[in-house]
């Protein structure tokens, strides 16, 4: 009964000054709209930029680095075991980049619960012969299916079919930059020379564009089998195993564990791409800061309007208190006014925010660097809408708090005697 009465009085007071109320609500609507649109857009961009690298990068990479052997003969010898040995001019040993027992390692990885999947890879330096010129490049032998599933490889093949390197023998997908250097079209044959001076002819079946120009000028992709054939290796030969984990943050401990377990060199994504996390974090922080600032400004608007309303309604407050409304009732009336401004303004804001972000989502945005993107990226994350609605209620509550308290403390005697 009391709650209904308070609602009724709050509603009458609100509607009696509907123009002011509307202005206050528009303030909230505007700020929530911008908050939603800004965060959706910023996060869309973040996702896009991070995706440029993070989507295509293994969470953990297993490989054999070229480096000096940890176990030098002098340290192994019984005679010098007790002494501290300084060795100068140590040379890197071996140069065997093959991962031993790669088949068994992959089996073990697939059984690990943390692992989403893994893809083997062979990386080798080559020269592409174009008439008299040799252009240095890299051939990546990949398992197309695994690479597409885990690292979105197919999305970046802009011409031709990614799967063709698997089906057509001796075929290659060239980076867009590399292809234009070689003046190669789909169907052409390019000449490749390996570090060991073996020559091969490979048929171009597609072009690849990653969005990073430097990368596209040197990279090319072939199937695992083709790469093994170029290098004259067996079908067991693999130089890298790329692991994608279910949780990106598990990469550093998992990497350490694999290093122990398989005796290979490892690199986790955090170490390889530390700057991306930082960039995303800062961008998100800025968008939240702007959004919250907008809301605070709207809050001051509500504060002013409520204060004015209380001065105007002093008489009404006095008589309400004289006829039996307690301070807490008056307080609730004005808090309810503030919260309903926040509530209705906020709901409209969420709606307009959604509309604005879907409009942004339809604005064409094509750039050579980002082949998969046709419009501006938007992240329709429900969390933003949730945070927006919480913030709108919170700021209006805080804006209404002080004026409501003031109203509840109005002394009816002073008002009534003052007349």
């Amino acid at each position, binding site marked *: 009964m009391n709650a209904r009465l308070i609602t009724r009085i709050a509603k*009458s007071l609100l509607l009696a000054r509907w123009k002011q109320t509307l202005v206050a609500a528009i303030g909230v609507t505007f700020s929530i709209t911008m908050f939603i649109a800004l965060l959706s857009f910023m996060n869309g961009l973040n996702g896009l930029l991070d995706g440029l690298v993070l989507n295509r990068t293994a969470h953990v990479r297993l490989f054999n680095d070229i480096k000096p052997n940890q176990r030098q003969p002098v340290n192994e010898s019984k005679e010098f075991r007790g002494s501290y040995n300084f060795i100068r001019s140590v040379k890197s040993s071996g140069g065997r980049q093959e991962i031993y027992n790669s088949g068994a390692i992959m089996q073990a990885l697939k059984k690990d619960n943390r692992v989403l999947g893994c893809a083997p890879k062979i990386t080798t330096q080559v020269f592409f012969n174009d008439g008299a010129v040799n252009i240095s490049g890299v051939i990546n032998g990949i398992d197309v299916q695994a690479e597409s599933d885990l690292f979105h490889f197919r999305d970046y093949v802009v011409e031709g079919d990614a799967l063709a390197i698997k089906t057509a023998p001796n075929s290659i997908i060239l980076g867009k930059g590399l292809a234009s250097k070689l003046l190669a079209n789909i169907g052409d044959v390019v000449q490749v020379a390996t570090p060991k001076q073996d020559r091969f002819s490979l048929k171009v079946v597609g072009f690849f564009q990653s969005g990073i120009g430097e990368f596209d000028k040197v990279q090319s992709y072939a199937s695992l089998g083709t790469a093994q054939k170029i290098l004259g290796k067996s079908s067991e030969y693999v130089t890298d195993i790329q692991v994608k984990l279910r949780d990106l943050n598990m990469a550093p401990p998992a990497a350490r564990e694999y290093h122990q377990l398989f005796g290979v060199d490892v690199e986790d994504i955090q170490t390889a791409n530390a700057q991306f996390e930082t960039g995303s974090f800062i961008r998100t922080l800025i968008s939240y800061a702007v959004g919250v600032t907008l809301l605070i400004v709207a809050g001051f608007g509500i504060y002013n309007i409520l204060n004015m309303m209380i001065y105007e309604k002093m*008489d009404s407050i006095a008589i309400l208190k004289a*006829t039996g*409304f*307690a301070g807490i009732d008056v307080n609730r009336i004005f808090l309810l006014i503030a919260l309903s401004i926040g509530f209705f303004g906020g709901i409209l804001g969420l709606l307009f925010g959604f509309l604005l972000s879907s409009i942004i989502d339809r604005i064409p945005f094509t750039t050579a660097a980002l082949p998969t993107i046709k419009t501006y990226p938007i992240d329709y994350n429900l969390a933003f809408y949730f945070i927006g609605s919480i913030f709108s209620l919170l700021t209006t509550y805080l804006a209404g708090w002080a004026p409501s308290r003031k109203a509840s403390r109005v002394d009816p005697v002073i008002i009534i005697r003052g*007349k």
Partner: protein
Amino acid sequence: MNEPTVLQAHHIHKSFHDPVTIPVLKDISFSIKKGEFVSITGKSGCGKSTLLYILSTMDTDYEGDLFIQGENMRDRNEKQLAQVRNEKIGFVFQFHYLLNEFTVLENVMLPGLKLGHLPEAEVKRHAEDRLTTLGIDSLAEKKPKQLSGGEKQRVAIARALINNPSIIMCDEPTGNLDKKNGQIVFDTFKKLADENKQTLLVVTHDPEFAQNTHRIIEMEDGRIIKQ
């Protein structure tokens, strides 16, 4: 007179403390029985309004004791006092204090709805009865702005009556009205007192008004000099 006592003031003192202590009420004691029509008179500044606001429970800064229907009002918190005002006291002030956002009928109903003892339909019926009694039932759906001064004051009286209060307190109820409207308001009070046994306490400086009440309490310099 074996009527029960409605209101009793027991040695009430009050002082203002800003900036020096000035006593405004000194040792006020009196009681009002059910059905009495009492007026408090005195010169401007004698403390009669101050006394009324203490008796109304709105001013709690005093010494002494105040009993309404035998219950001591001391040591009650703000919410409980609001409850007492709602249930037991009706107010009529010099200014009408009607809420412009509501119709006349809603204004009369508000304290009844706040009390919450009756369903809304019942409160509405009571409010209409009060308006009829006061001869202003035709104004029920109008907004206070559209009413004349005398009509507004009668609506305020109807509002004071809605919860069947033990006592109605008035502060210069005819102060803002012309002779004719003042007479109508007075007649209304008189009728309530005579026919409905309604207890009334009126602060006024109008001697003619006071003469026609059952009992006059005369004040001077914060004391009761005659009753």
